[in-house]
């Protein structure tokens, strides 16, 4: 006979404000099988957990229902409490009367009745719960880091330095990411490349790190501790072992006028190229879309000049298969381009540029060698308007969020501009200045007070060209919303930070969730910010949301710590919420009839064929078997099995059936 304890939480007033908790407790007490029913202000607090624990011991409970918040919040808490009191943790269920009841309904009888319904449903379920034992799976102690920007670099180094193997995959020919494009960094104005490149070299030299640059993830299968990744190494068109990185091919390449991505389109590069001089690895690639040989079948000049005969025109992409135990997503971000801002003439007027282009212009290694020269005619711009929040915080543009880094880099840009053009006049149009961060506010003040950057609080409605000038029409909302016009020589848009174009496809490939803007979702916004909902996959850097360098680095180290913690165990304990195929005594052995429809439906290839043989070795029947290491517990096979020969622990036929009946049969719940 079941002996169930029901524990109803007030959650301060979060539940008790709309739900009559005493009534719920009284109603629960009447449910057959319930031997203990209490309510308490904070069930998750220490004394609350103590109540659960002592009731288990004193009343010899066989099951516990905690009616409180979402199981996604505190199920682990209470299951742990039960386990400590000697009750199998899987005999504890949460009845969600907060998120699904008290918070979403008005105070009243209907709300209290719904809470009772929910409790009754979970009591019916818990009566059918079975004690389960955790599953142990081995861990492959190699991490896969996707993305070689500063976050990926930091994560790789941290994991490698804790003694584990790392496979770092970067889609560009070189690691470095956006940080390698930056001129100087706020709030210290130290040179971005000067601080980054030593880290890049460290990656190249660390024996624990295998770097696949110019490579992309092809597929990822498996589960925490046991992933199988297939990596596509795109053809560089040269033998990396032979290439010394001398650069002769790049110099001699006749096709030189290709817009350089690294220079954000402001500079040019040849068809065989290294993105930038400090690239790691310092080996060129041939851009097959532009190379004369691939286009016309003639040239091969690079092949002729290469001193080590490293050029391989017929090289094909290569697929590398690796086994890894954890994955760090560090794929970074992009900024909004294209015709997203027609009102600003971006993409139409050459002198309306974005922040990354300004970075390249200001960079000593950039196309202008750090001089301020506007793209259209190379003149030094006398008046420059910086527009913050270009796209960000603009629901009409579909981007409600703050891109976070723009206030700071805009201040930096204005400052850098003044440092390079002493007589120039920088204006900044802004909505609010968000300079939260160590030395950030001081940095902005410096721009305004010391470098004479004129900040105008207001938005720009339109930019158009007139007589060689860019007419910037805006409003100064601090001076009575007065419309104003500035005749500028150049405009810099702090365009919104957005997810990479391939972010969604990649998320689908690795089975992690993402938000409506395609930034990757963390498992919990506060308490699990570097984990995803998929066990074993972690987040670092701006693929999760726009963030600046120190934040990216901090998160990368956090992710690395998570990976190191995972790798510190030889075996991983997994929740046993997995599918199981029925086994019976002979002569039936199993009710499974071996049609294997389940096998085709399993997303994880977790269903295997098992041959049942007699003592004489004679095959009796072939039935399905679930590999507990691979099964993720989705239960698709369970619903598909006609003979109900597969069941899923934790959401078993009996459990869900009992729930449906209990929910709908008010006041007569004993099934």
């Amino acid at each position, binding site marked *: 006979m079941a002996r169930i304890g029901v524990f109803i939480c007030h959650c301060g007033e979060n539940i008790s404000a709309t739900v009559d908790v005493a009534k719920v407790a009284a109603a629960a007490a009447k449910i057959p099988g319930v031997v203990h029913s209490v309510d308490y202000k904070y069930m998750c607090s220490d004394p609350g957990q103590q109540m659960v624990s002592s009731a288990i011991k004193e009343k010899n409970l066989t099951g516990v229902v905690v009616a409180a918040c979402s199981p996604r919040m505190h199920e682990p808490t209470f299951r742990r409490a039960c386990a400590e009191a000697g009750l199998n943790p899987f005999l504890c269920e949460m009845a969600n009367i907060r998120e699904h009841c008290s918070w979403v309904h008005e105070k009243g009888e209907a709300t209290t009745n719904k809470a009772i319904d929910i409790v009754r449903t979970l009591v019916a379920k818990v009566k059918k719960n079975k004690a389960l034992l955790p599953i142990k799976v081995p861990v492959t102690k190699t991490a896969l880091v996707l993305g070689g920007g500063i976050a990926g670099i930091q994560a790789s180094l941290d994991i490698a330095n804790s003694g584990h193997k790392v496979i770092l995959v970067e889609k560009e020919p070189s690691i470095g990411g956006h940080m390698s494009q930056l001129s100087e960094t706020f709030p210290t104005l130290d040179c971005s490349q000067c601080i980054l490149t030593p880290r890049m070299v460290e990656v190249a030299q660390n024996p624990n790190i295998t770097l696949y640059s110019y490579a992309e993830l092809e597929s990822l299968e498996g589960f925490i501790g046991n992933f199988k990744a297939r990596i596509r190494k795109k053809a560089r068109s040269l033998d990396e072992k032979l290439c010394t990185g001398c650069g002769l091919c790049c110099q001699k390449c006749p096709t030189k006028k290709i817009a350089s991505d690294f220079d954000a389109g402001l500079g040019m590069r040849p068809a065989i190229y290294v993105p930038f001089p400090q690239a790691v690895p310092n080996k060129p690639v041939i851009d097959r879309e532009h190379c004369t040989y691939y286009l016309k079948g003639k040239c091969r000049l690079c092949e002729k000049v290469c001193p080590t005969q490293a050029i391989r025109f017929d090289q094909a992409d290569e697929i590398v298969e690796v086994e890894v135990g954890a994955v760090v997503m560090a794929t970074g971000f992009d900024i909004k381009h294209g015709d997203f801002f*027609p009102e600003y003439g971006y993409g*139409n007027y050459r002198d309306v540029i974005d922040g990354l282009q300004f970075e390249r212009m200001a960079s000593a290694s950039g196309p202008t060698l750090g001089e301020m020269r506007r793209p259209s005619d190379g003149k030094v711009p006398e008046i420059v308007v910086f527009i913050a929040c270009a796209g960000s915080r603009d629901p*009409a543009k579909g981007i409600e969020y703050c891109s976070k880094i723009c206030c700071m880099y805009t201040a930096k840009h204005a400052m850098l501009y003044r440092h390079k053009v002493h007589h120039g006049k920088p204006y900044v149009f802004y909505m609010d200045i968000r300079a939260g961060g160590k030395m950030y506010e001081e940095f902005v003040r410096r721009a305004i007070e010391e470098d004479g950057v004129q900040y105008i609080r207001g938005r720009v409605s339109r930019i*158009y060209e007139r*007589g060689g000038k860019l007419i910037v029409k805006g409003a100064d909302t601090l001076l009575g919303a007065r419309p104003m016009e500035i005749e500028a020589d150049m405009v810099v848009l702090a365009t919104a930070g957005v997810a990479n174009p391939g972010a969604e496809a990649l998320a689908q490939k690795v089975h992690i969730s993402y938000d409506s803007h395609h930034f990757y979702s963390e498992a919990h916004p506060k308490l699990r910010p570097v984990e995803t909902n998929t066990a074993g996959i972690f987040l670092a850097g701006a693929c999760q949301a726009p963030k600046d360098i120190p934040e990216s680095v901090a998160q990368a180290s956090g992710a690395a710590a998570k990976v190191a913690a995972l790798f510190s165990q030889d075996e991983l304990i997994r929740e046993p919420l997995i599918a199981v195929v029925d086994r019976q005594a002979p002569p039936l052995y199993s009710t499974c009839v071996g049609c294997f429809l389940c096998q085709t439906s399993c997303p994880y290839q977790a269903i295997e064929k098992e041959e049942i043989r007699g003592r004489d070795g004679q095959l009796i029947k072939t039935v399905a078997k679930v590999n507990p290491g691979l099964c993720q517990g989705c239960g698709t096979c369970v619903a598909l099995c006609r003979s109900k020969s597969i069941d899923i622990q934790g959401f078993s036929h009996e459990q869900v059936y009992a729930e449906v009946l209990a929910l709908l049969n008010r006041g007569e719940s004993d099934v």
Partner: protein
Amino acid sequence: MKTGFYPGCSMKGSAREYSESLMAVAKVLGRELPEIPDWNCCGATAAHNLDRDLALALPARILAAAEKAGMDEVLVPCAACYSRLSVTRHELLDAKGSEALRARISGLIEAEYRGSAKVVNILEWLAGIGGLEGLIQAPFARKVACYYGCLLVRPAGIVKFDRPEEPQSMDRLMKKIGAEPLDWAFKTECCGAGFSISRNDLVARLSGLILDDAVARGAEAVIVACPMCHLNLDMRRPNIEKRADKKFRIPVLYVTQAIGLALGIAPKKLGLQRHKVTVRFSPAVDKSPAETLPPSGTRPGEA
């Protein structure tokens, strides 16, 4: 696909030439545009400031009549009417609580509004007609400033047509008939129509800015798709010139008139003679009349 035609008040009055040119063009394009039977005022002028139900009921009645007549879409050439009909359709079909609202309004108009008929503006309708290029008799080879005004592309979330800033649909149409649409700054700037009666000094100033920029960039004509825009830029030209203290000779053509000319339709059939500002264009290949006009208001060194 049956397309109904909603004229509204202006197409029968101040913008007769818009209607004439549209019908002439439709004839050449082989399209029939039957009027919606028993149509009524869209309520654009005042209703939406006075009574929400009335403001929705008037357009809903029009759309219900179109549905009853078996029309799949309704062509609304007047931008103000287009706006009212589009907003109503949105409120009654897509917005929050639309079901209850739809029931109430259906009750008011004593007809069931289902929402089957789509509302299209003139640019959308023209863009949807294939083969326009093939019918060109004499390319309208002129530099034009496409003026969209405010209501055609806004509110973006409701009309869901073109880009609210820097729209392109009219520019594309002009390219199709051989014209050269200019990049200019006033495509969607305000002409002041809202102050048409109360503050026509404001109208004169705002409309003047529009003409000034168009002329400065070398436009030979301003192309519009809205009777209000046309009224302000054409009929109020004397006020504009008085206020700006200079002459603008640039004519203002409805998009249908420009297309009509390119299709070889006689100016009179397109109602060009009705304009306040003389239009010297003709469908003849000879484009001299416009060129002989001295460009007015041009800045030194820019012509």
